[in-house]
């Protein structure tokens, strides 16, 4: 089993994160879906693109959608898309979250969502000299 993963971000943020994560982990993440929200675009178009990406990513084990900023248009589009296609959204995407989600994608959806939140938080630290 493997949970489908879709990333929805402002502009190409998500594509760049994917590119860097592939470089670090040394493997292709081509099966992760990506939708870019464009300020010039129409919200209904984004919602439709998210639904399409979710349907494509879902192999029967559910879909985890990762977005960059809670309350912003990409996240709001996912909330709307979730009405048509069941899945789980986690906001606050960062590189730590993305790499962990990829590593644990064969875990059940709810557990994977908790991993995403935990790893994303673990990647945020304060360092002093």
């Amino acid at each position, binding site marked *: 089993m493997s949970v489908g993963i879709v990333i929805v971000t402002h502009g190409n943020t998500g594509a760049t994160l994917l590119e860097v994560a592939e470089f*670090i982990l*040394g493997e292709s993440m081509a099966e992760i879906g990506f939708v870019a929200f464009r300020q010039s675009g129409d919200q209904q178009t984004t919602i439709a693109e998210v639904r399409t990406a979710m349907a494509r990513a879902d192999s029967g084990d559910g879909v985890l959608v990762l977005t960059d900023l809670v309350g912003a248009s990409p996240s709001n589009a996912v909330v709307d898309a979730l009405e048509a296609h069941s899945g789980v959204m986690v906001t606050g995407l960062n590189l*730590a979250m993305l790499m962990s989600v990829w590593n644990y994608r064969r875990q059940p959806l709810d557990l994977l969502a908790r991993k995403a939140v935990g790893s994303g938080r673990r*990647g945020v630290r304060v360092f002093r000299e």
Partner: protein
Amino acid sequence: MIAGNVTIVNKLGLHARAASRLVNCASGYASEIRIVRGARAVNAKSIMGVLTLAAARGAELVIEVEGADQQQALEALTALIEGRFGEDE
């Protein structure tokens, strides 16, 4: 359980790609593997765990391994770190 001491010797330290190689190596063994740096211990099969060690060149680590293939795992991880993760310097 067996354990071994190892020092990070490559120039860039335990950076992201090096951490990924370490996790891949550790994940190839059935044993439970922990990496300890000072008071901090992490699961060697977790990329975020390994990265949060923030281990630069010179950092001294302890590798603790427990399981059927513990000897092979400890040797492989020690060789990987002492071999600078395959990096030139």
